[in-house]
């Protein structure tokens, strides 16, 4: 039973982390046309609880994509410089959509395992109930 409740904790940490990842993807997509916006990414890391790894996962600090911002030519833009260029954002929609799809798949896998663990513990409860 201890194993099963540990599994439920680990799986819910997985779902929470994938949810956080999706939040940053949504921020990136909605700011795809914001001038000067840099793409945000998060890394997953093992959660350390009381000095040892608990097996759960958490998201690390938010990092900004340091790749060059594209120069967009639009002399009418209020932020354009003397040459008529301004900095766009380095968000690529295709990359964000692929990332979102992967996060969704991982979330579903966590949910599926959660369902299995829940069924196992309810089987155990049925034995107790007899």
């Amino acid at each position, binding site marked *: *039973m201890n*194993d*099963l409740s*540990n*599994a*439920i904790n*680990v*799986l819910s*940490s*997985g779902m929470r*982390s*994938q949810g956080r*990842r999706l939040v940053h993807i949504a921020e990136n997509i909605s700011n795809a046309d914001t001038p000067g916006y840099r793409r945000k990414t998060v*890394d*997953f*890391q*093992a959660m350390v609880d009381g000095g040892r790894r608990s*097996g*759960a*996962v958490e998201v690390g600090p938010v990092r900004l994509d340091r790749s060059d911002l594209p120069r967009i030519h639009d002399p009418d833009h209020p932020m354009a410089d003397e040459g008529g260029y301004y900095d766009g954002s380095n968000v690529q929609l295709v990359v964000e959509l692929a990332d979102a799809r*992967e*996060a969704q*798949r*991982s979330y579903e*896998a*966590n949910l*599926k*395992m959660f369902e*299995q*663990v829940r*069924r*196992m513990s309810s*089987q*155990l409860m*049925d*034995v107790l109930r*007899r």
Partner: protein
Amino acid sequence: MTEMPALLDLAASAARHAAARQSMIAQNVANADTPGYLAFDLEAFSPQVGADGMRRTHPGHLGAGDGAARRIALDAVANDPNGNGVTLEDQILRGIEAQRAHGRAVTIYSTTMDMLRAGLGRR
């Protein structure tokens, strides 16, 4: 009649093994996107695990198990660019396997209990 408690013991340790295995698989699935994480699993359940016999009670003892199934690494190489070695499909299948093993063990346990109760006339 003396086989019954032994059978209960066996079914209980099989269920414990399946639960421990499911917990490991849950860790693998939760870490499916953690850079540098490699998947692992428990070795298969054998009735000898936890049975009477030579048992290791001190880490320095040789030649006997400590009564718990050992964990084994699944893949030596990572198949993702970020060093992650978890294949979700494989893990879900292993999870279903553990769930079925658990269901089987619990069913054996409760059926044995029913038989014991019937033997005591308290059906």
